C-alpha cells in the first residue's frame, strides 16, 4: 500500500503543484487583500470590506441574479444531460455521430456562438419569425427581462455536451451483465434505473451537479456579450459583472471580498450536495 502511494506522487505532483501555485496560494493570499483598505498603503481594516460588500446593493443584486440563474441553469443542465446521455447510451453504437456532435458547442469559442445567438434572437431574427409563423408576436429577446431566456439557452447549449460525456462514461462503465441478471430476475426498467443505474452513476452525477453549478455561477461572458458591463435589464447583472467592474475601478479589495463571500456560499452549497450524495447512496445501497 505504502509503495503504491509512493509511486503515485510523481504523477500527482505536477497537477498538485499547478493547483497550489495557481489556485491555492492566490486563494489564501487574496484573503489579505480582502481585509485591507485597497489603498496604496494597504491598511488592515478587518471585516469592514465584508460588511460593506455584503450590504452593497449591486453585490446583492449580482448575487441574487447569479443564484437565480444557477438554480435555473444547473438543474436543467443536470436533467437534460442525464436524459440525453441515457438516450445516446440506448442507441449505441449507432449514436456515435451524436455522441461526438454533442461536444461541438463546448469546443466552439463563446464569441462565435454568441454571434449566432444574437442573429437568432434578434427582433427580426429566425426565432421571432418562427413565433410569428406560429401565430405569436415578436418578442424583444435581447432587451427586457426576456433576455434571460437566450442567456439560459446559450448556457445549456454550450455546456450540455460536456455533462453528457461524463454521464455517458458513467453509464458505459456499468457492467451489462447486471442489467441482464436484473432482466432475468424480472426487474422492470424503472427498477433497473433506480436500483442499478442511479446508484452506480451517483458519483458521476455528483460531479455533473458540481460542474453544472460551478459553470452556472460563472455565467458572465454570455451576459457580458449580450448586455454589457451594466446591463440595461437589471436581472442580467451577475456577480461577475460586479467583480469585473470593481476590478476596472482598481477596487480589488472589493473584488476579493466578493469572491470570498461567494466562495463561502458555494462551499456551503457543495457541502449540502455532498451530504445529499452520501445520504442518497446510503438509501440506495444500504436502505435494503
Amino acid at each position, binding site marked *: 500500500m505504502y509503495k503504491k502511494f509512493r509511486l503515485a506522487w510523481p504523477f500527482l505532483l505536477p497537477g498538485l503543484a499547478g493547483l497550489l501555485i495557481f489556485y491555492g496560494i492566490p486563494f489564501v493570499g487574496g484573503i489579505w487583500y480582502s481585509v485591507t483598505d*485597497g*489603498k*496604496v*498603503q494597504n491598511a488592515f481594516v478587518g471585516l469592514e470590506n465584508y460588511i*460593506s460588500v455584503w450590504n*452593497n*446593493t*449591486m453585490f446583492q443584486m449580482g448575487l441574487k441574479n447569479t443564484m437565480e440563474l444557477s438554480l435555473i441553469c444547473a438543474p436543467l443542465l443536470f436533467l437534460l444531460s442525464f436524459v440525453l446521455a441515457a438516450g445516446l447510451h440506448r442507441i449505441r453504437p449507432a449514436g456515435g455521430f451524436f455522441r461526438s456532435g454533442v461536444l461541438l458547442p463546448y469546443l466552439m469559442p463563446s464569441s462565435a456562438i454568441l454571434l449566432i445567438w*444574437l442573429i437568432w434572437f434578434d*427582433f427580426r431574427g429566425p426565432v421571432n419569425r418562427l413565433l410569428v409563423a406560429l401565430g405569436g408576436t415578436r418578442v424583444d429577446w*435581447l*432587451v427586457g427581462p426576456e*433576455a434571460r431566456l437566450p442567456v439560459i439557452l446559450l448556457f445549456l447549449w454550450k455546456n450540455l455536451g460536456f455533462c453528457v460525456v461524463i454521464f455517458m462514461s458513467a453509464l458505459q462503465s456499468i457492467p451489462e451483465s447486471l442489467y441482464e441478471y436484473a432482466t432475468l430476475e424480472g426487474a422492470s426498467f424503472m427498477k433497473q434505473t433506480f436500483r442499478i443505474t442511479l446508484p452506480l452513476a451517483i458519483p458521476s452525477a455528483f460531479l455533473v451537479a458540481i460542474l453544472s453549478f460551478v459553470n452556472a455561477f460563472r455565467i458572465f461572458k454570455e451576459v457580458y456579450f*449580450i*448586455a*454589457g*458591463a*451594466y446591463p*440595461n435589464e437589471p436581472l442580467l*447583472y451577475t456577480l461577475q459583472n*460586479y467583480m469585473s*467592474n*470593481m*476590478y*476596472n*475601478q*482598481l*477596487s*480589488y479589495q472589493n473584488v476579493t471580498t466578493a469572491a470570498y463571500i461567494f466562495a463561502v456560499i458555494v462551499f456551503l452549497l457543495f457541502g449540502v450536495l455532498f451530504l445529499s450524495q452520501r445520504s442518497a447512496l446510503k438509501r440506495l445501497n444500504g436502505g435494503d
Partner: protein
Amino acid sequence: MKNQTRKKVILWLAALVLLVTSCATAFASPGDRTIRHASSVDWNYNESIDSVFRMGDGFGVIAYEDGKQNLMKYADTESEPEKYLLRDNHYYDPFGETEETEEAQMTGEAAEGTEPEAGEPADEAEIQFEAKPETAEPAAEDGAAAEEKQEDAEAADGEQPAVEGLLSLDDIDWSDEALNDESAQSAFPEGEYYPADGEFQEGFQYEHETSYYTQNWFMWNGELYGIAVGQDWNPTTGEQSVEGVKLKHYKLEDGKATEEDADLPEWDYDKVSGEVESYGSFYLNDICVAGDTLIGQTWGAGGNVIMTVDLKTGSCSTMNMSMDVNVIAFTAGPEGSVLLGIYDWNTQKGSIIRKNLSDGKEETIKEFENGSQSMGLCYDAETDTLYVFQSGELWKAPMADLTKLEAVNDCPLTDCHLTVLPKGFVLAWNSSNILLRNTDPSVRGTTMLHVEDNTGYNQTMSETVFSLNEKRGDLSVVIRQQYEWMSGTNVLTDMMNKDSSTDIYVLPYEGTDFNALKKRGYLADLSDNAEIADCVNRMYPYIQDAMKQDGKIICVPVGLSGQTMGFNYKAWSKIGGTEEELPKTWDEFLDWLEKLPERLAGTEVKLTQDEYMADSMSGMLFSNIVYEYQIMKDSKGEELVFNTPLLKKLLDRVNNFDFRALGLKSWTENDGDNTVYYSENGAVLSPYTTSPMGQEYEGYGEPMPLSLEEGEDPIIPVQIYVACVNPFSEHAAEAKEFLALAMDNLEMIARYSFFADQTEPLRDFSYEQQKKMYEKYRDLAVKDAEKAEEGEEKIQAEAIVKSWDEDLERLETESWRLSPERIERYQKILPFCKVLDHDFQREVQNTITAQDAQLMGGEEDDNINIENFLNLMDQKMQMIRDEGK
C-alpha cells in the same frame, strides 16, 4: 590591526564606488549627440529637415532654414558640418540676412537687377513666389491660412519648394515703373500665378513651363544625386500631372552645392508612371540604395507600390504591396529584399515583413506584441544587422536571428527614420530632429525612466527628454506613446502587481483609470519637488485645484484634450457682429444658430470650416451640453441625474434641430472626393477646440461661454491630460525631476491655458521678417512716390504707399499666434472654466451595447429617443454609483 586593514579596504572601495557613480554622467551613452533639434511643442515652421543620408564615414543633411536650403556635410560622427548652399528660396526673408544682400537692396541695386525671362531658371536665389501685393498677406491671418502654411512646412519633410524656373526676389524690380512696364510684367506671365482679373476665364490660355522639384537625395558611388520631379498644374481644370523625372547631380565646391543634370541614363519613368502616380503626382518615399539599385516606396493608383530603378540603365520597375497593409517603415534588406514595418490597426500589433524583390515573396520575420504605431528601420549590410526604432527605443539584432532583438538605446522621437553609420552608430531623424545614437547597450544611461504616454500625440514628454539630456546625462528615458482609447492602459494591472517598470503615466484626467488611481491613492506625492510645487502654484486656481488631493500635488497637467465647439470671434467681427449680440444661454444659441445663415449671406465668412459636419455638429453640441450639465451639478453639490426637464428640453432641441437647413451635410453625403471646404476668410464655428483659449493658431475658434439656463453661470468644460508618478517607481525622484522639466516644455496653448503668469501676447513666427519686408517695400514705394511726377503717376505711387501702409497695419493687428484679445477673453471666461474630473458620459457610452442603442433609436433614423437615452444614462450611472458605495 586586521580590523584597521579591513576598514581601509572598505573605505577605498566606498571611495571607488563614489568616484564611478559621480562620473556616471560622463560615461553615459558616449557618442550620443543631438545633431539638430527644433522644438516640437513650439514649432517654428521656417525650419525643416528634408533628407539625411550616409556620406562616406559621415553623413549628409539637407535642411531648410531661413529660406535657404543647405547641405550639411559631416565628415564623421564627431565633426562639425561643412555647409553647402543648395538653394536660396528666401520665401520668408526676401532680402536675406547677409549684409551683402541687405546692402544691395538698400542701395536699390535690386531694382536694377537682371530680369530673367519667364520660366528661365535663375542661377541661384530662386523663389517660389506669389506676385505682389498678394504676398503681403500676414503669415497667419486666419486659422486656415496658418494651417496651410504649417502643412507646407510639414510637407517640406520631403517635398521641396525649390522650383526651377521661378524667379529670385532679388532679381525683381519692385519700382512702380518696373511693375507697370510690359517687359517687367513678362516676368510674371499672366496665368502663371494669378490671372489679371483674379479669376480664370473660359478659354483662358494657360502657358507655362513644367517646374522640376527636387524631392529627395541619395548617395551613389560617392556622389550626391537628387530626384527631380516635373510637376505640372493646369489652373483651368485644376488638374496636375507629372511630366517626367530627372536625376540631378551635385558638385560641392566653394560652399555651394551646384545642381546639374546627372550624367546617367534617363529613367524609363513612363513605363511605370501609371502605377506610381496618384492624383497626378509622384513622390518616392524612404529611398535607399542597394548596390546599383535605387529603391523606394510610393502610393500609386493601386495602393502601396515599391519602385526600383537600375541606376546604371535607368530601367524602372514596380511591385505592388498588399492594399490592406499599413506600411510605417521601409528600407532595403539583404539579398535583394526590402523590409517593411507594418502596423495593424485591428490587432494593434506591429511586425516586420521581408519581401523579395525578385519573386515578390513575403515573410513576416518579426512580430511586436506591444508595438507602437510608429517604426523606423535600417539594415547594415556590412555587419548584417537590423536596427529598429519602436516604442521609444532603438533595437538591434543580427539579421539572421531576430529573436536576439534587444533594446540598445533610447530615442525620444515619436516617429523617425533611421540611417546607419559606421562603427555601430545610427541616425534617428525626422523633419525637426537628427539624433546620433550609439548602439552599444552596455553604455546606456545608468538610470532608466519609463514613460507611458497615453495621449497618442502630445509632444511634451518627447520634448522634455531633450531638456533632461542637457541636465542629466546619466538618465535614459524611454517613452511609449499610444492612444489610450485605442490600446487601453496598463495602469491597473501595473498597480495590482505593484509593478515599477513604468515610472510615469500620462492619462486623461477625467478617465476611469486616473479616477481609480486618485480614489485609491495610487499617485505619488509630487509636493516634495520644489520646482513642481512652484509650477503648480503659478497655475490658475481651477487647474491648481485639479492637481491637488488633500493638499498634496498628485499630478501635473501636460496637455489639453477635450472637444468643445469653437467660436471664431474674428470671423464674427468681420461680418459686423459684436459680443453683445452673442447668445448667453444654450437656448439662445440655438435661436442664434438658426438665424446665422441669414447673417452670413453675402459675406465671405462661412458658417463652418467643413460643410460635411451636420452629424458631428449635432453630436458635439449634445456632448457639450451634457458635460456642462454634469459640471454644473457637481459644482452645486447636487446628485447627478440626467433625466431632468432642463437637460431633456435642451437635448430635444438639439436632437430636432435641422442642421441641414444651415447648409450643412452629413458625412454620408460626401460625394467621394473627400473635399473639405475651408474658407479663407474664416468660419464662425469650428468643429472642435481643445483648450479654453482655442487652438494653436488664431482664428480656429474659442469656446463660447453658454449657460444651461438664464440666471446660471456659463460653464466651460476643460479636459486635460495629466502626468503622474507610479507610487512603486524605483526612480521617483528622477521621475519628479523629469515632470518638473516637462512644465517648461508644454505646448504654447497649454502653457498659456495653465499658467497665470503667461499673459504676454505672442507674435506669429514670421512677424518680424514680414514686418521688415513690408517696411522695405514701403520705403521703396515712398522713394518712388517722391520721384514721381505730379498727376496720375504721383497718385498711383501714393496709392502703392498707402497699400503698404494698410498691409503694415494689418500685419500689426493680425499677425498673432496668441493675440491680446484672445488672452483677454480667456481672462474673462476664467471663472467659468472647470476641469472635467469624471467623464460619466463617456463611461456610460462605453457600456452602451447594440441593444441599448436599439432602445435609444428614435422614430427617425437621424434622431435618438432623448427620453430613453437619458433614462439609460441614469440607470447605468446609478449602477456605477451604487457599485462604488
